[in-house]
């Protein structure tokens, strides 16, 4: 019945509140009477009361935990452990200032710094950093462009992005889908080079030795900061590579779609020798190749398949092989053997 339930609810409310009040005030005769009333009335209420009492009493004893600041003390402890230097997240402004403080020998760095300082839009305290860790992260930029960060990559942009500039700074590897805007060139800066685009999709991979730009659609200009007359213009299905130490550009006439398989989630092989196919697959899934030295494989493969499961990829390939060779994958290895 409705009345009964409402009464029950009100009683519950009174109980907790009364308990709270009881616990808060010093115990006096009046309260004690009420407490006994609660206990006597209802076994269930009594258990409830006991539970509250336990929690209440125990709570005072846990205040010591408040005195221990884990993050602060971790910072102390880790300086005593000599770990190898990890890539630190440095806010852009102090990054730029830190470079200024060191006398730069590499022209590229100096020029990059000048570029930074000149572009008041980049040199802006409101710099946003987005980083990926063990997952691929998709980033929506304010201008409608989309950046997919591969694992362990970072991108920086400022608060004016989309309004006065479309500059970003990239560490690691990312795939860009850039919206058209002829007033604001989309520029991707890395340590000593810039990739400038109008409206395209392409992949940029930066590491300590090289920067590789692969264009899927549209057109991209890739140049050194210190000398932007030295530039590569890349078309679809082109890839350009900048060797950071020699400052030389190389161009690859045929863009290998498998280099961005992490993004497309697809392998595409057009008449590729089996050995090359195996290398690509082993690299992607981080497997070691095991093959008999005397096993000769002459076949070429043409196949398109999803990267979702290495087993599926290999069974697809096995189906298309005409010889007596088969591919097997274990946890750590890709095995090429006779059937």
């Amino acid at each position, binding site marked *: 019945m409705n009345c009964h339930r409402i009464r029950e609810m009100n009683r519950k409310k009174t109980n907790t509140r009364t308990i709270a009040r009881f616990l808060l005030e010093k115990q006096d005769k009046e309260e004690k009477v009420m407490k006994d009333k609660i206990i006597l009335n209802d076994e269930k209420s009594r258990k409830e009361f006991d539970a509250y009492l336990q929690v209440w009493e125990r709570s005072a004893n846990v205040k010591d935990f408040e005195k221990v600041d884990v993050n602060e003390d*971790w910072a102390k402890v880790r300086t005593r452990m000599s*770990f190898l230097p990890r890539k630190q997240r440095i806010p852009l402004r102090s990054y730029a200032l830190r470079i200024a403080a060191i006398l730069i020998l590499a022209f590229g760095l100096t020029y990059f710094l000048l570029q930074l300082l000149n572009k008041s839009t980049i040199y802006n305290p409101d710099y946003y950093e987005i980083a990926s860790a063990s997952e691929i992260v998709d980033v929506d930029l304010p201008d409608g462009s989309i950046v997919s960060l591969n694992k362990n990559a970072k991108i920086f942009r400022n608060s004016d992005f989309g309004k006065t500039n479309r500059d970003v700074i990239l560490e690691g590897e990312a795939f860009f889908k850039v919206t058209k805007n002829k007033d604001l060139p989309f520029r991707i800066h890395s340590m000593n080079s810039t990739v400038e685009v109008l409206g395209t999709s392409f992949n940029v991979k930066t590491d300590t030795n090289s920067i590789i730009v692969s264009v899927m659609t549209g057109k991209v200009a890739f140049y050194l900061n210190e000398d932007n007359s030295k530039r590569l213009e890349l078309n679809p299905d082109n890839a350009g590579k900048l060797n950071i130490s020699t400052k030389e550009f190389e161009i690859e006439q045929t863009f290998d779609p498998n280099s961005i398989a992490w993004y497309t989630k697809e392998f595409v092989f057009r008449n590729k020798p089996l050995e090359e196919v195996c290398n690509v697959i082993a690299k992607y899934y981080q497997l070691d190749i095991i093959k008999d030295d005397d096993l000769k494989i002459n076949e070429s493969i043409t196949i398109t398949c999803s990267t979702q499961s290495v087993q599926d990829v290999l069974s697809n390939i096995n189906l298309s092989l005409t010889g007596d060779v088969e591919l097997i994958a274990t946890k750590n290895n890709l095995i090429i053997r006779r059937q």
Partner: protein
Amino acid sequence: MRDFNSYDLNADSKFLINRLKKGEEAAYELLFKEYYQLLTVFANKYLNDIENAKEIIQDLFVHLYEKRDHLDINSSLKSYLFRSTHNRCINYINAQKIRNKYADHVKQIDTGKENSLENEVNKTELEHALYKAIDDLPPKCQIIFKMNRFEGLSNSEIADKLSLSKRTIETQISKALKILRVKMKPYMALGVLILTFMQYV
């Protein structure tokens, strides 16, 4: 906030131990962040001196890192850490000759009763779980609850300080109690809370 059972370091012990042996910073960070607060409060029960307790536990972690090549842990990481803490505290107390600062239950542990150490560890873990539950309370609720239980302020004192009515304070405390009771239910079911409650009587 993670709850008691969400990450079982015991299960991943071997994997973690391997990474610790390799000296990987991430592994040490994980271990530290999981156990530092717990071990420090546990050590404090021996020493009654939170700053010294912190130093001892920090030393423990640094030592773990420095001697990682000789890491020989057959049991779980957790037992290893607690046992090391116990030993270090005993050594410290002996060296400092301050036996008279012992709490009664610590004297019990000192006699080498295996059970007592485990009970003490469980008790500390329960307290840690309760602390995390309190730390997770909604802000207004948390402040008021902590002012009363941690700082010892009375209802009227809190009401004055925060310019709220006594009734509001009661409401927030009762809200806290409800949330905490629910969160601590699993521990009560285990009978641990009851056991430790009895130690208070």
